[in-house]
């Protein structure tokens, strides 16, 4: 092979290699162009998404603050500016403590910066915030985590709940006022009945006392003639006329009658005063003024007192019977609240019995109150033979202000108060079973250990 041929071969290979390289370059250029197009589109999409995210972030009503792992503020959206009164420049780079007087050691931040329990993310906490002007306010915050490339981002969502808190406090105040009003209303309602209950024994106590006064005047006449007989006997001057006078006066005043009636009148008077005393005692036990802490109470006795003070409410419409477990131990209880619950249910039972009765019916309905121990619970059932509660409204009966009674006849607070008293204040339960036309049973369970 001569040198020329060798060079030609080599030149041929180099030429072909160059063409190959050019083809490869074109192919790579095309690939690069297409990739660039994809990148341009991707960049545009990302820019659009970022703009959308930023718009959402800025438009949202909640304050959104992002922090780094050490608790330093990275970003602060428009709502956060409105809530705290700081501009973004004033807080970015600052520690979150600037906004939260409780600091990051507070309950809401106890997991920052080592918030490992991701399940807690998104939970709402109440916290106190501090505005730029130094004033503090109630807020609701939630924490979550995000990942920015290699570092963790903590996202704090803040909502100013000052107004809501104020409304809640007003609502609570109104509820207390309403409860007080309902209590006063029921006491007022009871007062007329109690007056009536007291009036009957007072009346016959008065009648008997007047009878005793008259009887004593008669006996006084007899005692006067007895004095004369005693004088005559001492002087040994007793006369037939004097004896006749004694007999005559004894007949006139009907001494035999008086001798049998006076003890009865005294007995009846004592019975009357006992009845009045019992009603007064029941009233006192019912109202339990000033009871703000739970004390061990005899549930049966409390029920009996409530039955006594409410007697005038039910006695014309229902026979009220009890089947009380006398071995029931005392139960930690707010006596006044419990009595109010029993009264509300009895009054509702009477109304249900009246509703279920035809206009010309004189037959009385029935209310049965039972107590018994069930495990660690004291169970109280109040069953009536009233009209029953339609299923459609059964789930609403414990709602505040829900009532089926006419305007002015019920505030809709009775069962709501009962629910709150039993469930919220005693950690007990209250359930209802009812059948329209047959009756209703309320079952209350109170824990024996408060």
């Amino acid at each position, binding site marked *: *092979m001569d040198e020329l041929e060798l060079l030609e071969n080599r030149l041929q290979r180099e030429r*072909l290699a160059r063409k*190959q*390289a050019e083809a*490869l*370059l074109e192919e790579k250029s095309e690939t690069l162009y297409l990739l660039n197009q994809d990148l341009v589109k991707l960049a545009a999409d990302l820019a659009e998404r970022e703009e959308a995210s930023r718009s959402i972030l800025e438009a949202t009503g909640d304050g959104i603050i992002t922090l780094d792992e050490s608790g330093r503020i990275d970003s602060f959206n428009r709502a956060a500016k409105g809530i705290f009164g700081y501009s973004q420049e004033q807080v970015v780079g600052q520690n979150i403590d600037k906004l939260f007087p409780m600091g990051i050691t507070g309950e809401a931040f106890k997991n920052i910066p080592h918030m490992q329990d991701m399940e807690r993310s998104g939970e709402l906490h109440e916290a106190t915030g501090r505005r730029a002007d130094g004033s503090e306010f109630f807020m609701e915050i939630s924490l979550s985590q995000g990942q920015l490339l290699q570092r963790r981002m903590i996202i704090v969502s803040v909502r100013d709940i000052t107004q809501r808190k104020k409304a809640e406090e007003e609502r609570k105040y109104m509820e207390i006022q309403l409860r007080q009003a309902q209590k006063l209303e029921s006491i007022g309602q009871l007062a007329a009945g109690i007056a009536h209950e007291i009036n009957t024994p007072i009346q016959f106590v008065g009648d008997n006392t007047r009878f005793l006064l008259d009887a004593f005047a008669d006996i006084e006449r007899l005692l006067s003639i007895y004095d004369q007989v005693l004088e005559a006997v001492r002087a040994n001057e007793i006369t037939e006329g004097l004896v006749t006078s004694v007999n005559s006066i004894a007949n006139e005043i009907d001494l035999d009658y008086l001798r049998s009636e006076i003890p009865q009148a005294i007995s009846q008077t004592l019975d009357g005063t006992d009845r009045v005393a019992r009603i007064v005692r029941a009233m006192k036990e019912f109202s339990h003024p000033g009871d703000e802490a739970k004390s061990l109470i005899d549930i049966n006795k409390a029920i009996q007192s409530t039955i006594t003070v409410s007697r005038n409410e039910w006695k014309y419409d229902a026979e009220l019977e009890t089947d009380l477990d006398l071995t029931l131990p005392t139960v930690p209880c707010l006596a006044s609240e419990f009595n109010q619950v029993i009264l509300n249910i009895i009054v509702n039972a009477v109304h249900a019995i009246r509703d279920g009765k035809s206009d010309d019916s004189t037959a009385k309905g029935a209310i049965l109150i039972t107590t018994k121990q069930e495990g660690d619970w004291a169970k109280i059932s109040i069953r009536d033979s009233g009209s029953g509660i339609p299923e459609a409204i059964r789930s609403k009966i414990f709602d505040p202000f829900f009532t089926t009674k006419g305007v002015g006849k019920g505030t809709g607070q009775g069962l709501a108060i009962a629910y709150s008293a039993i469930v919220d204040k005693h950690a007990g339960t209250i359930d209802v079973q009812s059948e329209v036309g047959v009756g209703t049973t309320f079952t209350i369970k109170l824990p024996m250990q408060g």
Partner: protein
Amino acid sequence: MKGVVFTEFLEYVEECYSPEMADKIIATSSLCSYGVYTSVGTYPHQELVKLISALSTETGRQVPDLIHAFGKHLFGRLIRIYPMFLTGFSSSFELLRSVQDQIHVKVRMLYPDAELPTFEYQSNHPDQLIIIYRSKRPFKDLAAGMIEGCIEHFGEAITLTWDSSVQPGDAGVRFVLERKA
């Protein structure tokens, strides 16, 4: 296999033997590419095997010796073509340890379709480096030559031994580099 290996091989033959020898082995190897290579292209590794076999026939030298010698040459060429791969390394251990996680990563940036061998590193003490080399191609001698080229480049007193019994059923080759006292 990347074209740069082929172009460098042919230049190596021209330099060490003659342009006629390069032309001859191309002509006698029945290559699909007809010996036309660009450094940025990709070609079947079997063509390199054919070219080396032809060179062996022509020179009478053993194929492993030829591949090993070409490996040493290739290392020197590559660090001249790609000097950035050497930046920051002051010893062969350092450079060899970076092959898998740094140099191969950069190669993939340029040639995403490159089929690269894998390097796994073991070491019992600072003066020893064990590399487990695995490749789909029969070029352990090429790797050995390149490692020796690397040692020579840094001018270090290191002995290199290798064997093919990493584990039963494992086609890997164990290179053992030990710094001389």
